[in-house]
């Protein structure tokens, strides 16, 4: 009998923290803007003999903020530890990290996956109906602070080391192996990224490598509770790589079991070009990191007042905002999710509501549709069209000053050249006309010009009504109020029935 398998996925997410200086020294952490290699360096971050670390206060605060946002408890007593291994990007021969007592532990986050099977999810047995898929709660095992490594550029027969990145504060967010589908893993990663961006602790700029994923993957027969040998896929630098690598690895492991083999516990790399995971040279000692408390940095003892002071800095997070948008603005869950996926978009939406008379639902339709389309096509910043302008424009469509199509034209113009919506309408002569005698005149002319179409209509081809209305719109260059046009056209057609 053939078994069906389910994947067991855990994610480690490494995110750089947006501080001015490095984690353990006062060198600039902005390696991205450094014009030259090895210019943001000092004895500490290059591991010179005798140099010592000093911990960055801001980084600790940001780490705690993330911990709280992920529903973790903050360890009042937490310590730095040394993780010992040799690599040319690690100047001291150890990385200062946190081990036994990380800054935050035991949190959770809810994810949604259309394919999430009905399984017991980690620490919480309840399945939370959420969004349009099934939700489940993923336990966040720990959040800890560490330092980034130097950047290695691999040349043909050698490598070049740049220490500008060495010592940049890095947050590691480790989930329990609670994810059961690639989609759920993606949703989890996406939500973590959104939260980090909401908190302003990380730019989320994947291309710059400020956020990196590692996936721990095993598979097991459906219904089994065992945890089988897992592989660890390192250095996944995009959501696409995360999804492809995970999918590939799940299928690979299933094949191994089906052919009667055993999966080896090992570290894998992801070859994006070939679309396969590859075994890293097996280093038997690679995982004996010999952690021990960092003797150069005294333990951190945080109190309730300190934690509360961080907690009040927590902004409204994507999940809460989504719920509020659904409740307050009568949006569907997927509409709300789209708006809250980026803080700037959600803020823009609320700003537009403030300035508009039109309903939030209508504003959402515009933002999710035309606004996003223009944004993607124009390559400009979202705020190049102010929320106030957009609100004005939508209101003009709502109160029929202009037609919907004219509205689209105005928006495209706003993206292209900016300006004031009312001025654009005036300049382009887009204002809609609701004058009955004007529209009646146009309707009469079209009817007079098309006797054979009238005959067909009267013979039962009802769809022609739309054609007649369209002819009026063409004749009036879109200025005729379409609702009134349709009314008058129906009336005229009925009058001509014999």
């Amino acid at each position: 009998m053939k078994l069906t398998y389910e994947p067991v996925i855990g994610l480690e997410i490494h995110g750089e923290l947006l501080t001015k200086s490095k984690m353990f020294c006062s060198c600039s952490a902005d390696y991205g803007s450094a014009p030259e290699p090895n210019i943001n360096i000092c004895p500490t971050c290059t591991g010179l003999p005798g140099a010592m670390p000093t911990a960055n206060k801001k980084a600790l605060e940001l780490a705690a903020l993330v911990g709280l946002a992920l529903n973790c408890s903050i360890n009042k007593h937490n310590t730095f530890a040394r993780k010992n291994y040799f690599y040319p990007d690690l100047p001291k021969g150890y990385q200062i990290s946190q081990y036994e007592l990380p800054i935050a532990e035991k949190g959770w986050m809810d994810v949604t996956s259309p394919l999430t099977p009905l399984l017991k999810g980690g620490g919480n047995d309840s399945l939370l109906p959420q969004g349009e898929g099934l939700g489940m709660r993923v336990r966040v095992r720990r959040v800890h602070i560490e330092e980034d490594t130097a950047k290695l550029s691999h040349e043909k027969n050698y490598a070049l080391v740049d220490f500008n990145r060495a010592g940049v504060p890095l947050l590691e967010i480790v989930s329990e192996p609670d994810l059961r589908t690639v989609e759920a893993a993606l949703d989890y990663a996406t939500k973590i990224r959104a939260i980090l961006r909401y908190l302003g602790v990380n730019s989320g700029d994947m291309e710059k490598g400020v956020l990196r994923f590692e996936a721990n993957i095993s598979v097991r027969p459906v219904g089994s509770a065992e945890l089988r040998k897992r592989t660890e896929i390192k250095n996944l630098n995009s959501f696409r790589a995360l999804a492809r690598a995970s999918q590939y690895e799940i299928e690979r492991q299933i094949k191994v079991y089906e052919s009667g083999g055993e999966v080896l516990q090992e570290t894998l790399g992801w070859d994006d070009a070939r679309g396969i995971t590859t075994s890293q040279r097996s280093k038997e000692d690679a995982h004996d990191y010999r952690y021990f408390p960092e003797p150069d940095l005294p333990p951190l003892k945080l109190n309730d007042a300190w934690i509360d002071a961080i907690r009040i800095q927590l902004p409204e997070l994507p999940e809460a905002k989504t719920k509020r948008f659904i409740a307050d603005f009568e949006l569907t869950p997927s509409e709300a999710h789209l708006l809250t996926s980026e803080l700037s978009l959600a803020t823009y939406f609320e700003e537009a509501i403030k300035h508009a008379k039109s309903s939030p639902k209508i504003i959402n339709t515009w933002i999710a549709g035309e606004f996003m389309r223009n944004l993607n096509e124009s390559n400009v910043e979202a705020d190049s069209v102010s929320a106030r302008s957009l609100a004005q424009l939508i209101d003009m469509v709502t109160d029929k000053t202009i037609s919907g199509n004219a509205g689209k034209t105005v928006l495209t113009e706003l993206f292209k050249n900016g300006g004031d919506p009312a001025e654009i309408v005036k300049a382009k002569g887009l204002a809609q006309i609701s004058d009955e005698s004007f529209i009646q005149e146009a309707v009469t002319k079209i009817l007079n010009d098309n006797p054979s179409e009238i005959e067909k209509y009267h013979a039962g081809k009802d769809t022609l009504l739309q054609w007649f209305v369209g002819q009026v719109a063409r004749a009036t260059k879109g200025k005729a109020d379409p609702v009134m046009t349709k009314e008058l056209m129906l009336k005229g057609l009925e009058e001509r029935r014999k």
Partner: protein
Amino acid sequence: MELTNLTIQEASELLKSKKISSVELTKATLDRIHNVDSKVKSYVTVTDELALQQAKQADERIAKGENVTPLTGIPFSMKDCISTRNVRTTCSSKILENYVPQYNATVTNKLADAGAVLVGKTNMDEFGMGSSCENSAFFNTHNPWDLNRVPGGSSGGAAASMSASLCNFSIGEDTGGSVRMPAGFCNVTGIKPTYGRVSRYGLISLVSSFDCIGPMTRDAYDCATVLEAIAGHDEKDSTTYQSAVPSYTQNINKPIKGMKLGISKEYFVAGMEAGVESAMQEAIRTYEKLGMEIKEVSLPHTKYGLPVYYLLLFAEASSNLARFDGTRFGLSVSDNAKDVIDIYLQTRHAGFGDEVKRRMMLGAYALSAGYYDAYYLKAQKVRTLLRRDFETALASCDILLAPTCPTTAFKLGEKTNDPLAMYLSDIYVVATNPAGVPALALPAGFSKDMPVGMQLIGKHLDEATLFQVGHAYQQVTDWHKRLPSLCHRR
């Protein structure tokens, strides 16, 4: 008057009253180094040029009467594990043989600011690992009192340079007796301050949680003077105390009558050389005469001091020495290296001596998966008990007295093939480092013509009492004034 035999206090008086210049004093010191140090071999590097330049600046300061401190113009030597910008800093290791730091240790800066004159860097056991200075990768240092004997370690070069009058004070470093044990062997006064009292920034770490930079001097008064100049909070060393440094010399002359001197029964057991034991009894009698009340106390975990000390040393050192990998500084061996790992393996094989290798490997063992709890964690817990021992004992007395070593200086080569026997010579000095308490080593007599050292152990941050009690002893004894024959006026 032999300039090189002067105490800091004496030399400073002569400088301030312009009876001598710093350039004269420095030249006399450098001359003596060039004449005598070929026998003692206490210096790894002599900084003639820099010294004369600093001496000249010191003379200008004195002439202008600006910023003159008790150390202005005074020649000193420094253990070669403390970073000196543009001056080779080797840790007496092949791996750093040609390493010239790009920055100064905080202590180096403080001494330069005080106007002290660096005449050279002193030999040591490689990276501080040893008790005889025989683990230097370069050469053995000889005990000025008997050139066939060791000066002790690991600050053997510092102690010998002081003892042979090759400087007016020396900066040593004590991880587990490295200042006190050689001070005892060489008839020098030296202090291991409270852990965290002196910045370690720029000190090439052996054991980050034990290492203490401390001065070695002719007497307790000088020791107080130098410590005052180098102690204090450093924002670059997060393990330093925030509290202000008191004046150590202000109350140094206060009578010690009525103070309580604790004697730990665990320190006076079989195995101690008879001459050492009688010197200790003599010192106790001296303190009794000075009006101190003698109290027997107990440090019940004393015998665990050595295993705790060495286990934690091995563990931390194995990590602290990982940065010496041949890619950014120091020795780099890359014969037919296919891979960066070959550079690591070859450089570290060629660059480190056997004792260093032994300790790094044992450290990796103690920290490795499966052994961490049994060794490292266990040692950290027993360390807490050692610390409590001192706290409890020092709650009932002001100060403890103990020898610095069960024997006087042993012969060169005597213990080099038996690491454990070598470790045992540190039995009296190691426990203070895991406990963090300060200890002052003082000359306490002679046994078969070789110096005997004793140490006073005090409460955390109570160096002032150590100096006061040490100074009182030196007011009524003259052991510390005795010089080896090679320093006698010819």
